[in-house]
């Protein structure tokens, strides 16, 4: 401690100015380097250029198609795995079966870069149940937002009673996995 202090005191004013300039330059260099690393991190880390999406990531089915209903009141039907081409958009529809003709909700498994939006009308709420009701159809629009193929499996909740719930899904999306890559923090 003492030796360092005395060494500083021993240096000329000109040398001290040079020291300060050197420190400032070092700090600036490190800042510039960090800025450059942060700016280029996604491109370096994933090879997709400036693409935001982690196109291998799948958003899992979260079992929300029958929310609020007991098991015997709701059946889940699902589509096959449907491919959505690069930057393409497709409508996917499912119709409930005869014994459970009423749509009460939907959910999906899909790639992160595929967004889903409800395309059909909301089911009529509190409609009185009747004999031989028509089978209801639910449609969603799937948008592929990246230059990579994506897939969707649509799940629809079908009930023997008309929809009387207090919540209905409108869309499904994902936070783009490559918006930050510094800590490799991707849910899989």
């Amino acid at each position: 401690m003492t030796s360092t202090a005395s060494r500083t005191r021993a240096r000329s004013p000109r040398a001290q100015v040079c020291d300060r300039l050197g420190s400032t330059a070092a700090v600036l260099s490190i800042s510039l380097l960090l800025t450059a690393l942060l700016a280029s991190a996604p491109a370096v880390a994933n090879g997709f250029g400036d693409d935001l999406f982690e196109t291998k990531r799948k958003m899992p089915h979260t079992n929300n198609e029958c929310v609020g209903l007991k098991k015997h009141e709701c059946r889940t039907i699902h589509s096959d795995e449907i491919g959505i081409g690069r930057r393409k958009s497709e409508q996917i529809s499912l119709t409930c079966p005869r014994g459970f003709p009423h749509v009460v909700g939907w959910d999906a498994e899909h790639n992160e870069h595929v967004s889903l939006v409800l395309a059909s009308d909301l089911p009529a709420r509190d409609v009185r149940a009747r004999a031989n009701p028509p089978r209801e159809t639910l449609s969603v629009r799937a948008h592929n937002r990246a230059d990579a193929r994506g897939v969707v499996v649509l799940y629809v909740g079908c009930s023997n009673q008309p929809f009387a719930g207090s919540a209905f899904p409108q869309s499904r999306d994902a936070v783009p996995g490559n918006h930050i890559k510094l800590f490799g923090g991707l849910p899989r």
Partner: protein
Amino acid sequence: MRSAAVAGLLLLAAAARSEATPCAGFGADCQAQVMTPIGYSGWQTQGWAYYCTGDHPYYLGPEETDGQRSFSFDNSCFTVLENGGAEEGNASKFDALITNWCLNHQQLTVTLACSSQPPP
């Protein structure tokens, strides 16, 4: 130091507000209706329409410019962005874009401020 402590308390109060009853600040007719819990995977966004039901079928929203919220939610992993435009024409409806910013699966329960009287 003292002003920093006061500011901290105000921030805590603001943060806790999302979990407080949404009926605070509304009249005695307000009923807090707890919606069904919804599951979200990590870093996922879902759009949902919620509805006031029963004998209090009218939603007391959307959020006013003074920050008076007509809804609350119970999980700090989430942001809930109300979409007032999608509520027009339906006095029972609360519409929101909801994101789970945590990395793992989470559940969210939304509570709405509901009224027995239609909006003026």
